[in-house]
């Protein structure tokens, strides 16, 4: 089996980025859109071909093999070096399919959505840069390569959030996203360095190699401990900090809602389907390490962070009015699901259900969440507003958007026979087997998810009849076709037997639907939908009465539990006020002032003595002779003594 052609998958978007970026002024919009879509179409086909080849023929003795093609890029020691290359294994192939599908669909969709925008070509160049970085991240062979592409996706995300750079809110959102994720990535980098120092390698294959006899990692490193935990556990926690930053987990989630300032296709691609699941992918990539080092202590932390984030985000999503923000918090909540599923997973066989469920949910979530964003984009495109209050009764005007949005909403709510139902059920089953507390919270979140999704659905497409200035109309074909494709995937994606393909130990197993748990989850989901139907189907004041009844709690939730304010307080009052201001005072009044003082003294002194430079040669001669006389006196005086 030869998969070396997969190197083309990241290189095609890179070539596109270079061409579109350099000639962005020269290439007309009509061509650049087609170029981008065509390039991504090629990677789409290549990725599906790779998946087909790999999952069909990639097994030896029933175990999926890992294929690595790499070149040595930078040597530190004989063993510790940075490679560049591609790594083909079940999860990277699965991610290739997800990224190429969503990216291709978003390219097609953007051709309609961005039509007539000034920076049309620039937009496609950024999209190509992002696709390149994301493919590179997915295919990375070692921790350092993943870190390089990790930062590159951060940069392209920054560029795309700040795409409308004349809008101050977009600029500040871009900065916020970059700074928060960068701060988290600092932890990631420290973790990488610790791992490199103590294990002597960054290569995923070496780090993750498992001895099947003893059931532990092959690599043995000195068990240096620090504050009661082994150093490697600390490193893994730090690496997860980077992952939490990218995946908007608590407490680094604050950038994700603001990132919605970017164009909607960007939100669909980056902030729903691909980049934000990079944290999940990172943990999955290092899963054997997380699981085996110190009996999975780091994995416990991962599980709880995921569970808490998922609950927290779902509660906030109930009260938001900006439809994209609701979707953003929903994304955060669903990623929390994936993370907690990884956290409760074990390694071998059916025990590794959580890992499989996490990847499964990543896959289905990418499809239906991208679809929800594209649908939201379609609505925003039609009525030029993000706010729920400005919408209502749109089902008559936009039938395709309506149907596809409904499919996605049903899917995310876990209604039977839609994709989300299957993946969510696996997650709940994994949680049920391992951690009851997390299971209960997850079931509760499932109900909340159904409620807020249908609040959106009824609010946009049913509800009160609005008078619109322009009659809203269905979006053009270029936008509806990707939505229809994704809607198809949002149903069909659930019928893929993921346990046959993507597992923690690369060995397929049989997963069965747990009907008992599935029934509970679906019932909770349907209760959520019915509640939303009662509240929002017709215009009524039930929701106002409830929000009044909850009072303070409602206010807290509406303000996202004041997380932004707390961060602002910490940074402004404590860091700026107590540290930065005195430091600035010292700098201004001591360091700068002494320098300026030296300058001033020199200047005034030279102003005083410049009269000596009179230009009269006789004065100069006088100075010369007097100097000679003085020296003569000194010399004779010394001579006498």
């Amino acid at each position, binding site marked *: 089996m030869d998969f070396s052609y997969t190197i083309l998958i990241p290189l095609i978007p890179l070539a596109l980025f270079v061409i579109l970026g350099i000639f962005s002024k020269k290439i007309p919009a009509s061509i650049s859109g087609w170029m981008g879509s065509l390039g991504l179409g090629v990677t789409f086909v290549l990725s599906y071909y790779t998946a087909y080849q790999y999952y069909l023929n990639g097994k030896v003795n029933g175990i999926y093999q890992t294929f690595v093609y790499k070149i040595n890029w930078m040597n530190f020691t004989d063993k510790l070096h940075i490679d560049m290359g591609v790594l083909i294994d079940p999860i990277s192939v699965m991610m290739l399919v997800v990224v190429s599908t969503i990216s291709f669909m978003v390219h097609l969709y953007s051709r309609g959505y961005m039509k007539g925008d000034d920076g049309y070509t620039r937009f496609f160049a950024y999209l190509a840069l992002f696709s390149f970085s994301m493919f590179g991240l997915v295919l990375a062979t070692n921790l350092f390569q993943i870190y390089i592409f990790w930062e590159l996706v951060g940069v392209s995300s920054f560029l795309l959030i700040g795409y409308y750079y004349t809008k101050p809110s977009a600029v500040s959102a871009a900065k916020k996203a970059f700074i928060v994720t960068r701060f988290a990535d600092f932890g990631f980098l420290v973790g990488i360095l610790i791992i490199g120092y103590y294990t002597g390698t960054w290569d995923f294959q070496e780090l993750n190699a498992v001895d099947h006899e003893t059931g532990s990692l092959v690599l043995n490193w000195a068990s240096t401990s620090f504050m009661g935990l082994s150093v490697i556990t600390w490193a893994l926690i730090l690496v997860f900090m980077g992952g939490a930053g990218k995946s908007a987990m608590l407490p680094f989630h604050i950038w994700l809602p603001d990132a919605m300032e970017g164009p909607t296709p960007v939100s669909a691609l980056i902030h729903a389907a691909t980049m934000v699941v990079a944290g999940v992918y990172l943990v999955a990539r290092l899963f054997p390490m997380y699981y085996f080092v110190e009996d999975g202590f780091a994995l416990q932390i991962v599980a709880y962070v995921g569970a808490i984030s998922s609950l927290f985000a779902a509660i906030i999503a109930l009260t938001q009015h900006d439809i994209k923000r609701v979707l953003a918090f929903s994304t955060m909540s669903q990623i929390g699901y994936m993370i907690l599923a990884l956290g409760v997973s074990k390694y071998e066989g059916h025990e590794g259900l959580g890992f499989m469920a996490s990847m499964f949910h990543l896959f289905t979530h990418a499809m239906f969440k991208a679809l929800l964003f594209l649908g939201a984009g379609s609505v925003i495109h039609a009525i030029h507003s993000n706010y729920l209050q400005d919408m209502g009764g749109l089902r008559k005007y936009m039938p395709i958007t309506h149907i596809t949005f409904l499919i996605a909403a049903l899917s995310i709510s876990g209604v039977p026979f839609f994709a989300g139902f299957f993946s969510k059920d696996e997650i709940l089953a994994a949680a049920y087997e391992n951690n009851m507390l997390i299971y209960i919270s997850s079931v509760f979140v499932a109900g909340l998810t159904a409620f807020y999704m249908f609040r959106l659905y009824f609010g946009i497409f049913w509800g009160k009849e609005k008078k619109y200035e322009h009659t809203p109309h269905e979006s053009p074909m270029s936008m509806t076709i990707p939505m229809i494709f994704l809607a198809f995937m949002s149903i069909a994606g659930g019928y893929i037997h993921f346990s046959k393909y993507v597992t923690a130990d690369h060995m397929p197993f049989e997963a069965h639907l747990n009907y008992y748990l599935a029934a509970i989850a679906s019932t909770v989901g349907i209760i959520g939908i019915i509640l939303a139907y009662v509240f929002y189907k017709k215009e009524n004041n039930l929701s106002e009465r409830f929000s009044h009844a909850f009072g303070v709690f409602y206010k807290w939730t509406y303000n996202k539990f004041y997380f932004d304010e707390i961060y602002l307080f910490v940074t402004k009052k404590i860091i700026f006020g107590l540290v930065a201001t005195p430091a600035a005072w010292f700098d201004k009044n001591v360091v700068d002032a002494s320098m300026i003082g030296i300058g001033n003294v020199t200047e005034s002194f030279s102003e005083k003595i410049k009269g000596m430079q009179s230009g009269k040669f006789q004065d100069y001669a*006088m100075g010369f002779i*007097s100097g*000679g006389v003085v020296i*003569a006196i000194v010399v*004779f005086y010394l001579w006498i003594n």
Partner: protein
Amino acid sequence: METILFYILAALIVIFAIATVSTRKILRAVIYLLFVLIAISGIYFLVDYSFLGAIQLTVYGGGVIVLIIFSVLLVHHIELELEVTPLKKKLIAGLISAVGLGITLWAIFTFPFTNATTYKSIEVDDIGRKLLSYGEGGYILPFEVISVLLLAVMVGAIVIAKGKKLNE
């Protein structure tokens, strides 16, 4: 006799030198300078260095003084009175000169000169041989350098004094 002659020459030199630097009529200053130079050539004759005395008379008395007089006539009216130097400047210059003179004289009088016992008058013959000798203690190189210098100065003086024509 020679002692008296020396003191007369010395008095002439000092008086006319002071007159040279203090008179306000420029042409008179030139003439006083001429007297100083002639008196100095007298000193040279007294120490039996007649050749240098003759050079002093011809080069200074005949050449330099005439040159200066010409330049004075070119750029001044003969009756022009020089500007008065400010008193303050005079005092400072006088003070520096007096201190310098004092330190020099003090140095001269504290230094024990040992006079040579033999005495020889300086002959033109010896000077000529010395100047053209390229053996040990010969002066052929400085002599040649001086002659090149004089040539350069001649050319330079002509070029500089000619200047540019006004209409150029």
